[in-house]
């Protein structure tokens, strides 16, 4: 049984301490919802989890092994969704996705598009998409390569009610197959049995601070 955990994580962004002494653990089928006011470090924590930036202190581990020791192995396990939607304006929706599917052993692009209700847009160039449609394409990207851990940073941005429902269904299906998900959100997504982590509970307190 896989377990993804972080111990006494400390995060510094641009010389400013963001949070400290943070622990979490995610088991198969688990979900972690990050909450907290703007600037409390939700995105920073997800970037630490993805391995995009190293924690200032503490460690992140998968089955007890530090993720920094095997970056490519960790990359194979995760799907990350950030603030930006990398949809190339000159490529069609299907072409955009097929590039991100290139590293996958098998991928089902039509199914990924259908899961977010954008099947009919497959041949539409990225430049004609609305913000919400781009976000749906980006979410469909998560599905084209099967990975156990999803890290979603504000996945509901620009999504309408229907799409939020689809996202909840997709996450439920992912967890039913033993997948894990960590996400930050301000909206109510309706994830049953999710652990909640309020980042304002982990102030970056420094003992000798002036």
């Amino acid at each position, binding site marked *: 049984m896989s377990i993804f955990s972080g111990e006494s994580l400390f995060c510094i962004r641009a010389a400013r301490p963001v949070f400290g002494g943070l622990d979490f653990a995610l088991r198969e089928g688990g979900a972690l919802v990050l909450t907290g006011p703007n600037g409390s470090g939700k995105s920073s924590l997800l970037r630490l989890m*993805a*391995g*995009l*930036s*190293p924690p200032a202190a503490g460690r992140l581990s998968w089955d007890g092994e530090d993720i920094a020791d095997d970056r*490519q192995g960790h*990359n*194979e396990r*995760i799907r*990350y969704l*950030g*603030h*930006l*939607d*990398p*949809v*190339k304006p*000159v*490529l069609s929706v299907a*072409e955009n996705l097929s*590039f*991100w599917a*290139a*590293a996958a052993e098998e991928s089902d692009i039509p199914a990924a598009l259908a899961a977010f209700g954008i099947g009919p847009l497959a041949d539409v160039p990225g430049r004609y998409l609305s913000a919400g449609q781009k976000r749906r394409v980006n979410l469909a990207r998560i599905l084209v390569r099967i990975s156990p851990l999803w890290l979603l940073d504000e996945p509901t941005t620009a999504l309408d009610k229907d799409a939020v429902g689809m996202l909840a269904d997709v996450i439920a299906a992912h967890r039913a197959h033993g997948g894990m998900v960590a996400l930050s959100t301000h909206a109510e997504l309706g994830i049953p049995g999710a652990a909640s982590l309020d980042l304002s509970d982990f102030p970056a307190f420094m003992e000798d601070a002036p």
Partner: protein
Amino acid sequence: MSGFLAMVRRDLSLAFRQGMDSMIVVMFFVLVVVLFPFGVGPAPNILTRIAPGVIWVAALLAVMLSLERLFQTDFEDGSLELLALEPRSLEMTVLAKICTHWLTTGLPLIIASPLLALLLGMGSKGYPVLIGALLLGTPTLSLIGAVGAALILGARRGGVLLSLLVLPLFIPTLIFGVSAVDAVLTGFSYKAQFLVLGAFLLASLALAPWAAAAAVRQALE
């Protein structure tokens, strides 16, 4: 390897659909060279003398012009952080982007260069050597330039900074590239210059992808 090819394919199709980028680089190259007869006068003996140098400097500036966008667009739309999270080494991804950069700028420049050599009245003996030297030299420019392009990610006025960073590093390639053509035009062997250009290429191939990938990681942190 399949990831490498997928990356090259994607960047090539982006370059072809956006179309203008490589055309602009070639047009810039041609225009810079065409300016010289106006600047130094149309005397054939002067133009013939300076032809290899003019073509090389113009090629160098044209490569420079296109380098800024090497990582910039992917950085701005969030693709670059996802590329760093793909299950292949970032060095491979960077190398694929460098290859595409050469295919879309270096190669068109090489194809255009004989025409410009003709325009400046360069001796016909020099053509194969000019093309050979550019074939060895322009990939080095793309490789070295990629390190600069990765270092300026997130900087304001990156383009100016990039030229300050990279142009001095282009000088050795320029010297030996021009000297190879001059050698053959004056009746000497160009072998030594080609060997040096080849050595530059191999050394930058061994070092630049790692340096550029490290700079990209730094920019994403």
